[in-house]
């Protein structure tokens, strides 16, 4: 495939992903660098309040940058000890491993309990998805998913939009158990 063909395909996948994720009430934003993601996260919280941001899955250089940014805004950033915050944190900040364009789905490989809890116990979930990791549909990620599952123990999550229920009168309500909002930051890489 030619370079331009590749690029077109990628843009196409990105816009399909965005369309589908937005349709299930996720907030999707394009960002140019990972630093933009940290700024986005810190800004979402506002300043001067006692807010907690959990980012257990980040590699240490990234975590330091985020913690730095949060510190400037007077926010608390943690990368472990989620069990100490079972009543919930304000923001869970994660990186996605795969994006599925057909359904606007994030795939997060999270055998580690801290990361898993960060995606479940937050009010807002912010997830960075590098554009290069978006595939057409789940079948296109089959090999990668199998690799995760073969390396037991494993916990792999497909996350599409915020936690939702329609159990009362079929009226859609968000955030019944998990995050009230899902923000996806598409990183151009």
């Amino acid at each position, binding site marked *: 495939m030619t370079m331009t063909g590749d690029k077109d395909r990628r843009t196409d996948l990105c816009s399909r992903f965005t369309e589908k994720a937005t349709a299930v009430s996720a907030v999707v934003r394009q960002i140019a660098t990972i630093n933009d993601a940290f700024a986005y996260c810190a800004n979402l919280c506002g300043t001067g309040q006692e807010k907690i941001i959990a980012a257990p899955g980040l590699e240490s250089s990234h975590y330091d940058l985020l913690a730095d940014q949060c510190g400037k805004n007077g926010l608390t950033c943690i990368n472990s000890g989620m069990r100490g915050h079972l009543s919930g944190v304000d923001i869970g900040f994660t990186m996605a491993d795969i994006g599925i364009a057909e359904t606007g789905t994030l795939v997060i490989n999270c055998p580690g309990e801290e990361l898993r809890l960060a995606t479940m116990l937050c009010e807002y979930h912010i997830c960075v998805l590098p554009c290069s990791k978006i595939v057409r549909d789940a079948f296109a990620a089959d090999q990668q998913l199998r690799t995760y599952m073969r390396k037991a123990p494993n916990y792999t999550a497909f996350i599409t939009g915020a936690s939702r229920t329609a159990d009362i*009168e079929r009226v859609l309500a968000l955030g019944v158990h998990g995050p009230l909002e899902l923000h996806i930051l598409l990183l151009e890489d």
Partner: protein
Amino acid sequence: MQNAKDLKEYRCEMQESLDNTFLRQALDTFAVAYRGSRAKAFAGFDINRLVADVAAAKDAVLPRLDELFREFKKNAEAAGVTVHFAKDADEANAIIIRIAQETGSHKIIKSKSMTAEETLLNHALEDQGLEVTETDLGEFIIQLRHEGPSHMVMPAIHLSRHQVGDLFTDVTGARQEPDIDRLVKVARRELRAKFIDADMGITGANFAITETGAIGLVTNEGNARLVTTLPRVHVALLGIDKLVPTLEDALKILKVLPRNATGQNITSYVTWITGANECASAPGRKKDIHFVVLDNGRLEMAKDPLFSQVFRCVRCGACANVCPVYRLVGGHKMGHIYIGAIGLILTYFFHGPDKAKNLVQNCINCEACKDVCAGGIDLPRLIKQVHVRIQDTKGHPLPSLLLGQVLKNRKLFHTLLRSAKWAQKPVAGSDGFMRHLPMMFFKEHDFKALPTIAETPFRDRWPGLRMEVAKPRVKIGLFSGCVQDFVYPEQMEAAVRLFADHQVGMTFPLSQSCCGLPLQMMGEAKTSRDVALQNIRAFAQEDVDHIVTLCASCASHLKHNYPVLLADDPKLADQARVFAAKVIDFSSFTHDILGLQAKDFTGDGRRATFHSPCHLCRGLGVHDAPRDLIRAAGLEYKEAAESEVCCGFGGTFSAKFPELSAELLKKKLDNVELTGAEILLTDCPGCIMQLRGGLKKRGSQILVQHTAEALACRRKDK
């Protein structure tokens, strides 16, 4: 839950649902909204192919079940899971109780599992003094109300926000307004505390993947993620039908399941768990994890040549969503634990004939469920077959036996019909309706006027009608069915006149009889086969290209069921296939074969609408032909809302469940009247009987006709 002793008690219970205005309104809105969102979710996909993929993946599992279970167990255990096999519900519950005892678990949280509902797990756990909390919002609500689910996917669909508000007021001790968003937040708060305290989490599973020993959970709320993460023990209870060899198979099912269930492209969460994951509250930070694989009649079902297709069920609940009976009475009346079409079948296998005996009769055979099933299961056929099995072991009720005896003997049947003509004399009005119903009908039939038996049946008129066509462009045999032969012969005559204009060579074999569908509906399998054979023999000597019938139900039965009814005898089965291949309904024949167009008619521009008989649109897949013909005939066609939803006739169904039949009819006629049409057309004499009777009762002036009549009286050169 089904505890009704007999049909009468069951009917009483259903009346309660019919009187429940909230339930009726909720299910009505849902039925209409569901159709739209499902269509949207599948837009751009070839649904039939996706369904065929699911069916093929599931069918491939059947012969390999033992091997796949062993492989699953091996792989799951290698990853640190303990896998248990439970032969029935009691055994499954006992295993889970033992795990609770051995792990010292007292507080249990659950995410939604139909399999746990099936084994009545909560009761068993609570009997041991264990505290069980359902965390799925709907399940939480019905647990607090001590009820079972009324839908497989939306367990509390029968309740209003006011009922939930009152319930939460009781539970929290503080006044809770009936505001859905706020009620959801109340549940979030109440349940969060339960998650934190729990020792053990119980889930179901949508997939058990043998190649990796992983399970997959398909959920929306995110509670299953917490249930599988926070407590130190995790037990997943799953039916052995959840086994699939590969992740790819699971993904094929995942592509259809949420789209078919709720019209979502995918649920908010799909969770794949392999082995004993990290768990900070467990000794050694390792989750104590158990999979309990349940048989409970499934293995026997897998070996059954007919019922093994039930394994294709992915529990999407769609067969309830589209079922006109479910829409009227709701899940508590249309299932024991599993709901809807599949519920009627599973109740028999999982909970026994006593629980199923009334339920299985409550199917009008409209085929709406079959049409949307995610696994392509022939649900109406299986429902009938359960009925047959129950009757064969429990004994056949007298009316059903009598009908069988009468229909088996064509001469006797026809003699009875002819004498009914005399019997009804004193009560028949001059307008073709009975003034008062003869004794043989129940009083509940009063919602519609019943037609009288015709003065001269079609078979007696035929000798005067038949004409030799010198060079026929096509040769057909006419199959009248009993209603058009004895009640509405004029419809057959209309078709004959229309066909005669277009060089159609026609025969009408006199030894033909009832198609046998009423027998099938009554669960009389043997006589149904006898009658099929009679009809095949009646046409065997005729040199015809097509067998044309004006009755969609007859057509669908002759075409699809005859080959199955005679499948046990290879020679007869061959004859049945040849016969079935020739069967065609009136509109398809006139439209597709004769190709009649506007130039063949002189229209009068009157406004007409069409009721699509179940067995025409779903049974035969015919949608456009009759509508095109109506337009071609020069009528102004106006589509009615829900034109493909059942009118409530369903043959013997309307005699067994007159209240339900009346409600379906009411809805149908409301939609018809809204079109402002003067003429209501349809392609089935049974529907005509129902529709005409209902409109007559309303005092409506709308003319109900068979499409053949409307076309015949607008022929160009008549």
